[in-house]
């Protein structure tokens, strides 16, 4: 570990970094999506082409994080002319380099001024696609870790909490609990030892926001955690990441190492009395570990089963100590809030939902990828304007938000502004940010069954309503799909949904009925079309028995 870092060191690194900046930067996406389309090879070939053209002094080839339009990857952006090349292959490299000296590259391009990009507002993803996630200097050059310095030297922990309250930030993990309130509770909880945990167990199928943030800008998360730790009085942090995200894990490990080397993590950060270390804990494939008490059990090396709350983690969490748990996106918002001020943040979004939200746009939509928009942006703007609508002239039928805990919002409600309350009113939730677009070919009962199967498989088995209830609900949905169910089965299903929702121990069970309830609410006819006449049912169910019965 190096000597304690001071502010002038930070500005020196920034100055050095800016001085070394070359005239042209070729940015190549090295996030997991583009990596799977060989973007690493593209980067190597570009470097080679730059060398062959003798342009090393003028051109930098930089591996960066997500450039958002994942469906068109691998993406390469050429600055300063702002050309965005799509579906780039290694063979395209010489042409792209040649075009830097004038002329046009023989590579497909997309319009960087299209609504998909122009409608975005980057706070969490501000650095994504710009910084090199593997070099801390690249982050520092964009004023990284300045907020941490300012917080440590110019604010008391209480002032930090107050500013967070004033910003109006709400947890981005799903439920939208006010972050400042959470920080304040942990800060006030008595205890010599406290923990900060970053929940990076992004388990919702169809969500990849947190993966992208970790792969694209890991230091923003580390800085956010450090600020939070100072505010609540913690000296140890954990990041709980899914094992399914090997690249994110590697980049986090690298980022932690670099931050430690520069003294931005460890003891006496910025010559202050503040000590903070971060360790990574790798999940092992259990969706329920996204629930905070289950996550803590898993960090403790146990079976990831949730426990009743209260006591809340803020009072008694990891190893029985007060613990702050926020998710990746929440922490990634933190540095910007302290850099630009709480009022700045509170000025974005709606009255009750401040700031921006990152969504992973996927499914039956033309432009799939990552978007960050101000809270309150209508769904229609997201799916039609930015997403470009359904591909191949199809019609959008519904948008699924909140994954297995959320619901399907039908097309007639596309003008709903995206904020916590509005989505809640439609029986869905904001969730972590997965947004799956469904077109006319999607069968809603099948979607409900898909999510119920997910919850059934992911139920930890501890509480009865979730363990046994999801099995029965799944069987009923299966029976309906097989056209073997009657109206009695549908009633049974609805009754079970209500019971499981209100009696399950944790969020997984409590929200497991949501996709079924929301499709029943908006697409009930699709269920009813599959029902069979109840020939041997009770009177009134339309069976032929009516006439045969004695008076």
């Amino acid at each position, binding site marked *: 570990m190096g000597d304690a870092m001071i502010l002038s060191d930070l500005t020196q690194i920034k100055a050095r970094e800016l001085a070394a900046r070359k005239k042209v930067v070729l940015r190549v996406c090295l996030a997991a999506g583009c990596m799977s389309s060989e973007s690493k090879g593209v980067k190597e070939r570009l470097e080679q082409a730059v060398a062959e053209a003798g342009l090393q002094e003028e051109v930098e080839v930089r591996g960066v994080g997500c450039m958002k339009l994942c469906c068109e990857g691998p993406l390469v952006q050429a600055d300063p002319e702002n050309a965005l090349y799509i579906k780039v292959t290694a063979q395209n490299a010489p042409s792209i380099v040649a075009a830097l000296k004038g002329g046009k590259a023989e590579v497909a391009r997309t319009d960087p001024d299209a609504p998909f990009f122009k409608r975005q507002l980057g706070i969490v993803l501000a650095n994504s696609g710009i910084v090199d996630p593997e070099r801390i200097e690249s982050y520092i050059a964009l004023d990284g870790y300045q907020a941490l310095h300012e917080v440590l030297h110019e604010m008391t922990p209480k002032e930090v909490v107050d500013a967070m309250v004033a910003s109006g930030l709400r947890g981005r993990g799903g439920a939208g609990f006010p972050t400042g309130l959470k920080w304040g509770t942990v800060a006030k909880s008595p205890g010599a030892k406290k923990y900060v945990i970053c929940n990076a167990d992004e388990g919702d199928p169809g969500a990849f926001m947190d993966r992208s943030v970790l792969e694209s800008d890991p230091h923003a998360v580390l800085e956010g955690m450090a600020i939070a730790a100072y505010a609540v009085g913690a000296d140890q942090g954990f990041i709980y990441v899914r094992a399914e995200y090997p690249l994110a894990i590697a980049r986090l490990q690298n980022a932690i190492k670099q931050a430690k080397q520069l003294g931005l993590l460890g003891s006496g950060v910025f010559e202050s009395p503040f000590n903070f270390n971060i360790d990574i804990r790798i999940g092992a494939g259990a969706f329920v570990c996204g629930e905070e008490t289950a996550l803590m059990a898993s960090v403790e090396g146990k079976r990831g089963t949730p426990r009743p709350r209260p006591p809340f983690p803020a009072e008694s969490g990891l190893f029985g100590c007060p613990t702050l748990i926020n998710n990746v996106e929440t922490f990634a918002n933190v540095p910007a809030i302290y850099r630009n001020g709480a009022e700045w943040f509170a000025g974005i979004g709606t009255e009750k939902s401040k700031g921006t939200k990152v969504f992973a746009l996927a499914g039956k939509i033309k432009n799939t990828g990552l978007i960050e928009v101000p809270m309150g942006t209508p769904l229609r703007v997201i799916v039609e304007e930015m997403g470009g609508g359904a591909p191949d002239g199809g019609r959008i039928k519904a948008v699924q938000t909140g994954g297995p805990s959320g619901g399907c919002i039908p097309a007639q409600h596309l003008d709903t502004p995206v904020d916590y309350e509005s989505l809640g009113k439609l029986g869905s939730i904001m969730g972590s940010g997965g947004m799956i677009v469904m077109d006319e070919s999607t069968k809603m009962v099948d979607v409900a069954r898909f999510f119920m199967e997910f919850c059934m498989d992911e139920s930890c088995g501890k509480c009865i309503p979730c363990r046994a209830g999801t099995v029965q609900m799944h069987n009923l949905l299966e029976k309906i799909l097989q056209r073997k169910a009657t109206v009695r089965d549908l009633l049974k299903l609805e009754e079970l949904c209500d019971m499981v929702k209100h009696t399950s121990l944790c969020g997984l069970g409590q929200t497991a009925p949501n996709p079924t309830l929301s499709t029943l609410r908006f697409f009930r006819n699709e269920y009813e079309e599959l029902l069979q006449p109840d020939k041997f049912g009770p009177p009134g169910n339309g069976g032929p028995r009516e006439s*045969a019965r004695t008076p």
Partner: protein
Amino acid sequence: MKVRLATVWFGGCSGCHMSFLDLDEFLIDLAEKIELVYSPVVDTKEYPEGVDVCLIEGAICNEDNLELLQKIRQRTRVLVSFGDCAVTGNVPAIRNQLGLGNEESVLQRAYIENAQHNPSLPREDGIVPPLLPRVMPVHEVVHVEHYLPGCPPPAERIKALVSQMLSGVEPKLEGAALKFG
């Protein structure tokens, strides 16, 4: 007018009917109020139309059970699942644990492996009904109005339920009177 009562015996040990006979002198009171139109203890071949109440013993195990049960539902006002086999599947349904296709292995075990004389499978089209792939409690097949659990339900419990029905009140058993087993 007398209440037209039927009792039927599906997949069960007939213990529930034995318990019914344990009603002793109450049977004499009963005889004045009901007409027994169909039962293992009377000689009626065809389940009649217009039955008021039918007590169903046993689980639904074979195709004959299934066919007759559906006919009973069409021709009866009030069905009572009579005893644990009818209510839960009970012992006959234990074969369901063997999964689909257990019919064959169950017959093999009973009629070949455990046979002391002339091991052979009982197979006679139109005479020996084929087993269903899954044994079902009665309410899984048709709607049932009332349930009378117990293995067998004690005579007192049967008396309570039947008396309530005959006096025209909505039958209701409570507490330990609903005990399985």
